[in-house]
């Protein structure tokens, strides 16, 4: 019977080879899903905390903190959105100019250097 029990050996090998592979696959899948989930969760939480709760204690208005570094980017957005708004309205160029400049000024007036540090080129008040 010794070697005659070859079928048993073969099936034994098959079953022992399949099980570990299945287990390994499951582990790999679980790890990759959990990694992605963790990263996405952290990004969303920090974004919300920075924009709303930390900077606006006791306030309920949802806000987003602006920084002096993004000044030019914000101005560009103001110009783009103004172009879209006034593109087909029939409102005058002077109205467009006043409104666009007013929004830029209002945003600019609220932008101060981090921690009140001096020396930022854009932070200097201009002489008329």
């Amino acid at each position, binding site marked *: 019977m010794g070697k005659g029990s070859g079928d048993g050996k073969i099936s034994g090998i098959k079953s022992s080879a399949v099980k570990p592979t299945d287990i390994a696959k499951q582990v790999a899948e679980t790890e990759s899903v959990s990694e992605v989930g963790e990263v996405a969760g952290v990004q969303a939480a920090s974004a919300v905390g920075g924009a709303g709760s930390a900077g606006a204690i006791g306030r309920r208005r949802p806000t987003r903190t602006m920084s002096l570094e993004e000044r030019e980017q914000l101005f560009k957005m103001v110009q783009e959105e103004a172009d879209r708004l006034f593109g087909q309205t029939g*409102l005058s160029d002077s109205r467009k100019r006043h409104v666009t400049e007013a929004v830029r000024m209002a945003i600019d*007036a609220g932008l*101060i250097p981090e921690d009140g540090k001096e020396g930022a080129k854009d932070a200097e008040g201009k002489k008329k």
Partner: protein
Amino acid sequence: MTHSPVLSEEEIESLVHQNHGWAESIARSVARAWNMDWQLDGLDGAAMEALLFCVRRFDPSRGVPFRAYARKRIHEASSDAARKTHSWQRGMAGTQADGRAREISAELLNVFPELRSGELPIFEEGGEDDLRGSIRNLLMGANIIAARMDGSEKSAEEAMDTKRTVEVMANLDLVHQLLLWRVYWEGLSMRGVADDWGTDELNIIREHKALLTFLHKSISRGKVSQVPKVRPGLKTISLKVKREGQKAPFSQLLRGATP
């Protein structure tokens, strides 16, 4: 009326020392935005006065950091000082167009006070679309302020601009027209309107945002968009003002009547 300081004299001195440069940077930002000189135009003195005022009233036990407590007040003091200068009143700082833009921006800071704290008012979602949505609302708010200012001007072009904006606002529900009227024409804060109407400020803020979005869509597309419904938070007020027989101010303005 005097107010006893919560902090000791040493603590007050230390807080002033720590925040002196920071308060000056607020005055400089206001001056930069309006093309003024922060020292010659006296914004530095106003900012320092406001800093001292805030330091003497600051109570750390309330759990609000000093700068979060003081920033808006120092900003207001600086911008108020700027508006009182001769150069502002005579429109000398920059061109005439700059002068009008400055006037509009100063009022915009009152409608959106979070700008004074370096924050943009946003919707709840976040992201760049939201940032752009916020900028669109600021543009529309500025357009309404300009419409009110231009209403008293003689230029035919400006009068037509105002008429176009008022025509769109005249499509709104009575309570919505009253909300915009009180904020933009009467100069009430949103909290002031909420207090007057006995409702939560957040109801007014949300409704205001929805109205600006409607106005933006309607004006940018050149046709009146779907008129926003009155939200549950303002239903009671809406019924009340109708029962009282209050008139829709922008509809009246279009008819040439005084609201």
